[in-house]
């Protein structure tokens, strides 16, 4: 008898919710998300990864191992624009060598996600998938992601100033739970507006001239809070408004739509794209300067090549704009205290600059 198929996938912030939602709607198979990322995940991941590979690889691998232990046998990996594009194959090989039995699928085999390639991949995962269901549910999921990102933007601006501790956090949990139970476009949009109102009604104490900081850098460390040692939470606890550009909506469509415009904006510094989000981050640095932000934090995994290429240009942009910036490079060996010390000093520097 053939064993039942159980689909699973690695974590990326809260995005496991829409992905699980989509897979549940499309296939009849069981879908489980990987266990939440903890220290154990990264320990497992680093143990079986090449030492110099960047940190997202290790997290993903740790996720895969933990989820395989929980009984998954069909794994999905995203793939993408930099070294990440090769990760799926390497991870598959490592896991097979470890003795696990599973099927492995990559969503993006070339540089871009097209509806056609997505359809073909899904057809491979489940041949019985109906095209009509896909046409209905994929845009619905994208809409859900968009709504999530919209709310997240609002949260980042205000969570540092909440009156009641954990109020934003709890409400967000409630909202995500409600999103998974939506039935269609109408009910999703309704839920979104209800919760948007609820978020706006949460009590905050926000001064007019609070410190504003922008986070730029590599996508995985930006989006997975565990991998940046909860940087955003740390900033919020210092009462700083945070702006972050990278989210899944950006990766799915905004990036493509804004490329030309962004290049024009920074033509003094950079004339062509430099791989992954390198060019976009230069644009963001310039944008943050022009918008009057107080500081920039650039984060990347240790050894992230596109960002290493972008850093000297970003440095020049910030020198010209007299913008304070710090760089963080995350690895499995990073000391949390070191990050806190630097962040604290950065905060003091911004305060001093304002003359407080």
């Amino acid at each position: 008898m053939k064993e039942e198929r159980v689909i699973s996938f690695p974590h990326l912030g809260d995005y496991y919710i829409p992905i699980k939602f989509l897979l549940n709607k499309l296939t009849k198979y069981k879908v489980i998300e990987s266990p939440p990322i903890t220290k154990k995940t990264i320990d497992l991941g680093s143990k079986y990864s090449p030492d110099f590979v960047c940190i997202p690889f290790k997290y993903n691998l740790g996720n895969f191992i933990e989820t395989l232990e929980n009984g998954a046998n069909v794994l999905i990996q995203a793939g993408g624009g930099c070294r990440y594009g090769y990760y799926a194959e390497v991870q598959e090989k490592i896991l097979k060598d470890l003795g696990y039995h599973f099927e492995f699928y990559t969503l993006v085999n070339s540089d871009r996600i097209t509806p056609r390639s997505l359809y073909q991949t899904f057809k491979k995962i489940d041949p019985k998938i109906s095209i009509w269901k896909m046409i209905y549910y994929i845009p619905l999921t994208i809409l859900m992601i968009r709504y999530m990102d919209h709310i997240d933007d609002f949260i980042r601006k205000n969570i540092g100033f909440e009156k009641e501790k954990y109020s934003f956090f709890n409400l967000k949990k409630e909202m995500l739970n409600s999103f998974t139970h939506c039935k269609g476009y109408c009910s999703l949009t309704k839920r979104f507006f209800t919760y948007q109102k609820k978020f706006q009604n949460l009590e905050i104490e926000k001064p007019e001239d609070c410190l504003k900081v922008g986070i730029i850098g590599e996508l995985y460390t930006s989006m997975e809070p565990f991998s940046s040692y909860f940087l955003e939470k740390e900033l919020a606890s210092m009462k700083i408004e945070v702006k972050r550009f990278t989210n899944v909506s950006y990766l799915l469509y905004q990036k493509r739509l804004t490329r030309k415009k962004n290049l024009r904006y920074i033509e003094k510094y950079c004339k062509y794209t430099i791989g992954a989000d390198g060019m976009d981050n230069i644009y963001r640095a310039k944008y943050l300067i022009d918008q009057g932000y107080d500081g920039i934090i650039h984060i990347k995994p240790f050894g992230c090549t596109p960002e290493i290429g972008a850093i000297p240009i970003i440095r020049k942009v910030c020198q010209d704009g007299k913008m304070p910036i710090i760089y963080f490079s995350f690895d499995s060996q990073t000391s949390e205290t070191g990050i806190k010390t630097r962040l604290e000093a950065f905060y003091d520097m911004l305060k001093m600059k304002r003359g407080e």
Partner: protein
Amino acid sequence: MNAYLGIDIGSISTKGVIIDEENHILASSYLWTKGNPIEAVKQLIKELKKQVCTKNLSIIGVGTTGSARKLIGTMLNANIIKNEITAHAVGTLSLYPDVKTIFEIGGQDSKIILIENGIVVDYAMNTLCAAGTGAFLSSQATRLGVPVEEFGKIALTSKNPTKIAARCTVFAESDLVHKAQMGYQKADIIAGLCKSVVANYLNNVGKGKKIKAPIIFQGGVSKNIGVKKAFEEEVGCEVIVDQNGHLMGALGIAILSKKAPIKTNFQFSITEDQFETRGIECNRCSNHCEIICVSKNKKLIDAWGNRCSNGDIMSKQR
């Protein structure tokens, strides 16, 4: 008379000062941490007390900085706990208001602070690498059988410093052994080591930074005149080393505690109290946060290290 206590608890040494309202140092002390910050601080306070016992001081501000700042700050009920970068900048600026660059090389870390018009505009700290810190120099001194205090003097006697790989401590060490076995003079090797510390510092921490005079060099390694000379050769201008350079962090945090809005009440009798720390692993979720609990005379006074509300021991106690 009102006075303020500033303590800088580093990985290798613990420094403390007591200042008056005009930032004059009334008492200062410097001793080894020896891996036990609580004991070191008690010792330090005893020594400070000896120096000021004839004066009638009431200490209304306590500040802590350095890598054990949180622990000691809790222990002494400090009214300010700040990172060493800010503390060093503030301390140095109080003595040298027109400084532009601060080099700081300590036992475990090294940093560079850039200042414009009395305001910190940029800083950097070594991340993964220990090359060019005090710990590396002192371990190499032991290897060469030379007391680390005499390192600088010996380096100055060398006319022909040996080139030593500077990228990384491991490479530097094996290169050093290699050079010694080849028969180079000890003085030349030591001078080469001082140069390699500087090269490493400028390539690692100082990378991409605009270094402008006046430059102040501080931290434990600044006591090594060999390194100071190597810096001067490398940057091409005078590098100032203050005789109180090692106390700058403590001085800075004392000044910050003077400026802090809240005041605290500090008694020298704190050295009689029993402090205990305990590390526990929280098992309430899969993050397994390490939580540090500090107790004073067997009573829990603070706990930290939790990432979520599950491990919030203090709020559950209240």
